[in-house]
């Protein structure tokens, strides 16, 4: 039987389409913002120019991040196209190298993502803003270009899967571990076309940064978007950032859910996704494979909270002689904070390499691409075949504390092992 209550995602699509809709309806909805990066922006710009209309400037956000600072002439040509477009139309929301960073981090940090907002982004990890109660959906570049001109787009209102994390998480369990655990339970297409809603004490106890990591990887279960009900922590995060006024939003208690999963927080432990699939998860305690590279960065786990955790493990230790540690802050703000907190110095003294923000090696772009047969433990989001480099390289996914610990021992390890072995 169907209830009258609505999920948060049904509420947002109802408001933005002006129709009273539930899951399954196809709507044309008004977007609050549309975001593109240097990879998806060029096709958006080409599409926009075919419409022969003025751009909806206030809605458009342009953030070069994948291959900037440019890695070669071809990538420089792509980001130049974005830059030229921004200057030609005097776009108010263009984030140049040195003032931006990884697009999703910038979208949250600069206050575009707010509770109840509907945001489309031409990048699959756009679902991240669900951590702040926004409904944000990954789309393609061409349709983003259509939104540049119309401010509107078609969407199918998704069903919602609820994950209730009951009880408190162990202090060693981070947002990354929770989401990898959930993906392993439902599989890489278990959330296909759904909105994943995360609730319960386990989620409430996490900080906004860990929640962002969870919402970010909803796309690795095939989801359309994620949602977490905003609370006091969300409000504190948005206080000095939000560009628009917003109000609290949540699903109704009698809303219709596709499925509800009740998960006992005490069952969750730090995990590693084995090479090939984010869903192939093992407890860290069961994996000790040797590694060539340890990578901390990306829209998933490149925030200041992540770098603090890595630094905590690395303090007074050295990166293993056979291993390289690469730390890539997810935005200019994160980089500045890492400098002012002394974290860059600490990591450098441990023998790690710290760069400015870029998507870089997460997608095998540059600044840490893997050679044949190399193994990398990474705080990023995908470990598909060849994702970070050569087709015969391997990527293991983990939380940033585990990545830092592994860099010290030269093999996959937990921080606890480091504290026991390296005094």
């Amino acid at each position, binding site marked *: 039987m169907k209830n009258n209550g609505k999920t948060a995602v049904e509420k947002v699509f109802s408001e933005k389409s002006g129709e009273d809709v539930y899951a399954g309806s196809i709507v044309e909805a008004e977007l609050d913002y549309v975001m593109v990066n240097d990879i998806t922006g060029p096709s958006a710009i080409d599409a926009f120019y075919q419409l022969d209309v003025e751009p909806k400037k206030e809605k458009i956000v342009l953030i070069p991040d994948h291959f900037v600072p440019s890695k070669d002439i071809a990538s420089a040509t792509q980001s130049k196209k974005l830059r030229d477009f921004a200057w030609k139309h005097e776009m108010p929301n263009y984030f140049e190298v040195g003032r931006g960073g990884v697009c999703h981090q910038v979208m949250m940090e600069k206050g575009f993502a707010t509770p109840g907002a509907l945001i489309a982004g031409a990048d699959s990890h756009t679902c991240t803003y669900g951590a702040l109660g926004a409904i944000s959906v990954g789309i393609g570049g061409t349709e983003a270009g259509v939104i540049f001109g119309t401010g509107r787009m078609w969407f199918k209102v998704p069903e919602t899967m609820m994950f209730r994390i009951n009880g408190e998480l162990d202090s060693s369990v981070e947002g990354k571990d929770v989401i990898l655990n959930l993906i392993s339970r439902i599989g890489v297409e278990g959330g296909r076309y759904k909105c994943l809603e995360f609730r319960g004490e386990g989620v409430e106890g996490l900080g906004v940064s860990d929640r962002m990591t969870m919402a970010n990887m909803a796309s690795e279960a095939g989801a359309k978007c994620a949602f977490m009900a905003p609370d006091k922590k969300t409000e504190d995060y948005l206080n000095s950032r939000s560009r628009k006024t917003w109000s609290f939003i949540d699903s109704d208690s009698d809303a219709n859910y596709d499925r509800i999963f009740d998960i006992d927080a005490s069952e969750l432990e730090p995990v590693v996704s084995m090479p090939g699939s984010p869903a192939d998860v093992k407890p860290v305690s069961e994996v000790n494979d040797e590694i060539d590279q340890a990578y901390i960065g990306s829209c998933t786990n490149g925030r200041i909270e992540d770098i603090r955790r890595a630094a905590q493990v690395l303090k007074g230790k050295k990166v293993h002689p056979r291993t390289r540690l690469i730390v890539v802050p997810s935005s200019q703000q994160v980089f500045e904070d890492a400098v002012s907190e002394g974290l860059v110095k600490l990591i450098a003294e441990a023998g790690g390499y710290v760069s400015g923000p870029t998507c870089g090696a997460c997608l*095998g772009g540059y600044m840490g691409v893997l050679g044949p047969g190399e193994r990398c433990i990474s705080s990023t989001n995908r470990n598909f075949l060849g994702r970070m480099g050569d087709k015969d390289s391997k990527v293991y996914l983990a939380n940033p504390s585990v990545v830092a610990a592994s860099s010290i021992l030269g093999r996959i390890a937990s921080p606890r092992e480091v504290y026991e072995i390296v005094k």
Partner: protein
Amino acid sequence: MKLSNDLISGKIWRLGDNVDTDQIIPAKYLVTSDPDKLAMHFMENTHPELAKSIGKGDIIVAGRNFGCGSSREHAVKTIQGCGIRLVIAESFARIFFRNSINLGLPVIEAKIEAPEGTVLNVDMEKGRIHWDSGESEFQKYPPFLKKIVDSGSIINYAKEGLIRQK
């Protein structure tokens, strides 16, 4: 003839489950959007001979969750650049499905139990597929998607809408 009532015939190439966009077109080639240049690298990490073997008008038949991973519409452009006429999969990842509809690449959800090389005859209007030793059915596009598909692309669809507004 509009795509939604087209008749499509072509030889099939089979791919497995969870074919991700990094397999379809590795990220290192995302420095261009030219379908012809992209097409040379279609599935090169896992099926290095495929790009050379595929002919114009051929059909891809894949398993579950085809096109998962990144939002890159280069994946659709790569497939179009190869001359592939249609992609049939047991299920599609959502952004790949959107990109295909929006860029005018027909995609349908169906399970086809026919070996590689089989010639399929697909009736888009009736939602039927048949081949020498079998047949299958598929769900036709809902009316809204049919409009986009028949416009040829989301750009054409949006243009028509903008003209109506004027």
